[in-house]
């Protein structure tokens, strides 16, 4: 427990410490209503520091995916919709003018890898992003190799995506955004539909990446293992922001927001994955 409280003290709360220009992500008063009038977000404030791994927890319909789509400007000010609030990525405000740079910095991994992988082969797909950034030839090949190596999938580069297992496809989906040298990796329900072995392999891959990670998930043990910090989103607002272990050990908080641990699961017994050391493969 002493370990937990120490982490909790380390954790800078958004209201306690105003961010420097180096915050990986900074959301201020982000509110959003869909065209049909459904209000999905009510003024979300969130700061994610460089290198941090943060889980966004919350029940279905809490606005988690809507929030993710604000992080690279698919929704929000840049989309010209009826959005309120600002999003900064590494100090750059998300707007129409900065969309290209923002989408390079923020790598969004969608829930269904079949949506993410749309090119004929794995290599073609990983090359899609860097090609849009203007890379060609040997530089492009090197970038693709490096991104595939980071998820351990280089050997299957010439396969069509439909010849891969679901877990392999999800790892390739992660590598498609790593290839853009993103600073922030954002994943929507990364552990859904994975068998336990694929789930662990994905954890291995993600915990070894030296980038900022934001994960939207229902899988509380997954969040605990990967992320030191969690944010609880419910009904379009951030209702709690603390150390993941602290949240998972608060049964009242979990019950209020329809979050549930697997039966018999003891959060205190889990050894969280350490921070990744910057590896030479992904600068």
């Amino acid at each position, binding site marked *: 427990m002493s370990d937990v409280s120490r982490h909790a003290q380390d954790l800078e709360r958004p209201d306690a410490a105003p961010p420097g220009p180096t915050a990986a992500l900074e959301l201020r008063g982000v509110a959003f209503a869909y065209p049909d009038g459904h209000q999905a977000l009510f003024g979300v404030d969130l700061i994610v520091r460089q290198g941090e791994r943060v889980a966004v927890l919350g029940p279905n319909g809490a606005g988690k995916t809507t929030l993710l789509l604000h992080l690279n400007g698919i929704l929000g000010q840049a989309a010209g919709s009826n959005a309120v609030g600002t999003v900064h990525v590494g100090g750059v405000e998300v707007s129409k003018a900065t969309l290209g740079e923002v*989408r390079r910095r923020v790598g969004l991994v969608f829930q269904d890898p079949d949506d993410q992988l749309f090119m004929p082969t794995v290599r073609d797909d990983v090359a899609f992003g860097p090609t849009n950034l203007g890379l060609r030839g040997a530089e492009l090949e090197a970038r693709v190799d490096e991104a595939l190596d980071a998820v351990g999938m280089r050997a299957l580069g010439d396969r069509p995506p439909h010849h891969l297992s679901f877990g392999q496809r999800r790892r390739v989906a992660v590598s498609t955004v790593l290839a853009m040298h993103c600073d922030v990796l954002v994943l929507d329900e990364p552990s859904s539909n994975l068998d336990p072995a694929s789930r662990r392999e994905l954890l291995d891959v993600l915990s070894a990446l030296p980038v900022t990670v934001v994960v939207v998930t229902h899988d509380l043990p997954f969040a605990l293992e990967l992320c030191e910090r969690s944010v609880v989103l419910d009904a379009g607002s951030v209702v709690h922001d603390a150390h993941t272990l602290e949240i998972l050990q608060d049964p009242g908080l979990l019950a209020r927001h329809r979050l549930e641990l697997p039966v018999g699961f003891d959060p205190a017994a889990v050894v969280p994955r350490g921070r990744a050391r910057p590896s030479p493969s992904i600068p």
Partner: protein
Amino acid sequence: MGAGHAHGASRSVSDGLYLPGDTPLHRLPAEVKLVGLLAFVITVVATSREQAWAFGVYGLLLLGLVALTRLRPGTVLRRMVIEVPFLVFAVLLPFVALGERVDVLGLQLSVDGLLGGFNILAKGTLGVLAAILLSATTTPRDLIVGLQRLRVPALFVTILSFMVRYLDVVVDDMRRMALARAARGFEARHLGHVPVVAKAAGALFIRSYERGERVHLAMVSRGFTGTMPQLSAPVPTSRQWALVSLAWMVVASVAVTAAVAGDRTAWLVMAG
């Protein structure tokens, strides 16, 4: 979601008709094969139907290529079944066509119809055989690269490439829906069941449309601005182009000889 469709390395719909191999025809870049196929088909179609021997020579040339690619004769024959509906028409033609009649085994057949039927049979079979050679030695991806390089309109190539990628996903969706219907006791037995199947087709369309929207989001998230990247593949060497040109010249010389022979026959007929 496709949690259950980990195929491993098994074949699936979007693998097309490709049969892996390492023969000269397999190694030839797709655009060279596409140009060669087109030139061959045009030359065959332009050959006069009266010169039956020319089609025999074309056929032998193609059979040589089949042997070169080590395709099994059984596979080739099975794939040629696609031609059957056209053959039915070719067989009917001698009976229904008008004009001069000739007596064959006691049947009064039209000369024009016989020639017309032979024309369809010969040119159709040669075209199908050539297309089988292309599809068996070229992956769908390489075909897309070839079409891109031949400057086929980008929109067309993009649609084709998405079809190749998502055919399996949609077919899987369709199978799961059919399974879900069957699991609840549905069996399409008479026309009254058409609305059920039609509704399923509608649902499939909506699912695919929504997937299209999600795919577009994923593309935009990775910097897509409207043009698909040119896929990488080995660029044909001038030797490969020369080889195909040479092969076409053989075919063309057969066609020219046939045309000259046809002219002479016509001249002799007129003179006689």
